[in-house]
């Protein structure tokens, strides 16, 4: 059962981060704005992972950072799913000039780098976590919408849709009963991948100072702040970097595992 092993490893990795985020809601080793520690202390002693250049506890920052990373992933994917799937469905059913217009619009949006688009939106609003989530979510909506449109069009061309129509089933019913379930496996895998990308995008925005403002410790901002002191106090950069990598790998493994368990073609091969 190699395929479920992938899914499990991914779930454990992502679940671990989620657990840390959950614990951080109820307990933190220090207050997030507590600067009483020795500056740039190494790991060990009263500060398990050491402190940053302002004397704040690293573990505390990492823990609150996990909340931000997960919120960025979940929020962005939720927006991308809602806006993208709706838009994709509309585009798939649209005909003639409307279909062309929507497709062209999506292509242009996708040609824009996600980060650039996000920076535009963040600078138009203000640099908060919500802005970052909205920005990343909207940028990803275009990708999800285009994928949805193609998937829906492919399903609509199938005989079972025509068969369903010949028996007098209405469009909304066909979409609910046949179209959405059939595009879901591919879509779910893509959304899982988008989750990982959203986490990275948020970290990048924060690194550039466009994410959650202090004292909220985003992993991206921790990386940026630790950059100057990397040679003397590497823990400050290594810790958020490692967690970021673990979360993204975990989510990607989940996506891989989902593909193997949800994809009807693969499932057919393994059961038949």
């Amino acid at each position, binding site marked *: 059962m190699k395929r479920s092993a992938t899914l499990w490893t991914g779930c454990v990795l992502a679940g671990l981060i989620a657990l840390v985020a959950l614990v951080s809601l109820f307990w933190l080793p220090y207050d997030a704005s507590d600067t009483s520690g020795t500056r740039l202390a190494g790991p060990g002693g009263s500060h398990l992972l050491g402190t940053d250049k302002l004397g704040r506890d690293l573990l505390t920052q990492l823990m609150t950072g996990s909340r931000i990373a997960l919120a960025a992933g979940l929020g962005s994917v939720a927006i991308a799913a809602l806006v993208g799937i709706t838009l994709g469905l509309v585009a798939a059913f649209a005909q003639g000039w409307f279909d062309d217009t929507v497709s062209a619009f999506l292509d242009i949006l996708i040609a824009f780098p996600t980060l650039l688009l996000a920076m535009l939106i963040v600078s138009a609003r203000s640099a908060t976590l919500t802005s970052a989530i909205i920005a990343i979510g909207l940028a990803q909506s275009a990708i999800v919408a285009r994928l949805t449109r193609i998937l829906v069009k492919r399903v609509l061309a199938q005989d079972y849709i025509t*068969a369903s129509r*010949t*028996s*007098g*089933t209405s469009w909304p019913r066909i979409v609910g*009963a046949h179209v959405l379930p059939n595009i879901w496996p591919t879509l779910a895998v893509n959304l899982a991948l988008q989750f990982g990308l959203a986490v990275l995008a948020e970290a990048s925005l924060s690194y550039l100072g466009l994410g959650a403002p202090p004292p909220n410790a985003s992993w991206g901002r921790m990386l940026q702040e630790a950059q100057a002191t990397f040679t003397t106090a590497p823990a400050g950069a290594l810790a958020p970097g490692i967690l970021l990598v673990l979360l993204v790998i975990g989510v990607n493994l989940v996506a891989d595992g989902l593909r193997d368990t949800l994809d009807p073609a693969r499932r057919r091969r393994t059961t038949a």
Partner: protein
Amino acid sequence: MSLLDVRDLTIRTSDGRALVSDLTFSVDRGERLGLIGESGSGKSLTTLATLGLLPDGMTTTGSVELDGTQIVGASEKSLVEVRGRAAAIVFQEPLTALDPLMRVGRQLAEPLRRRRGLKGDALRKAVAEALEQVRLPEPGRIARAFPHEISGGQRQRVALAMALACEPDLLIADEPTTALDVTVQSEMLVLLDTLVGERGMAVLFVSHDLAVVSRVTDRVLVMKDGRAVEDGTVRDLVRAPRQPYTEALVDSARRLESALDLEGPR
């Protein structure tokens, strides 16, 4: 008045090429008509046009009246009303005619629920009955199976059960046996013949195989390049084909028949 009345039906692609030209035929209640011709002769398009299911971009002119409703130019809403009740289709490819992610029972329940207003236990019973009617063994197991878990012949029976569940006045069978192997094909034709006979349904049977058509229908319309070239009873066509194309069809059917005879009784 005929159940299906097709008059001067012309189907064009978006660039104006005519795929079906000036086709006129009718099917009375309880009557069976075979539509025969090679691939690309416009048979399948004609069947789709009778239910207003042509792909986007194709234009239809002429008139298709199904059970008194004009199909050409009708709104999707009025088409939904007519489809299933007046006519249902069994398609050629049993693999793609069923939703791969939905259990067979649930797919079959859909038309039963809508047409007869059944739910709960009554619906479950009706599904089992519908599966039994098409001579499927272990209806309980089949109802719980996904399409890829049953054989091609079984899938086609399910598709037939779904079409019959609509209780249509006209059953359109678009090469329903072409994708099946010969023994399964023969069983399927007998089953179709029996079930349709019991219900007094009209049939529009589409095929490229005269021998297959002759087992289900008595009247045949021969199509070539989107036009009707000849029509009449199967007997007349076989005995005295007026068109060279029909003659070729009859010849090939004969050759197949004699080849089978050489192999001895089946």
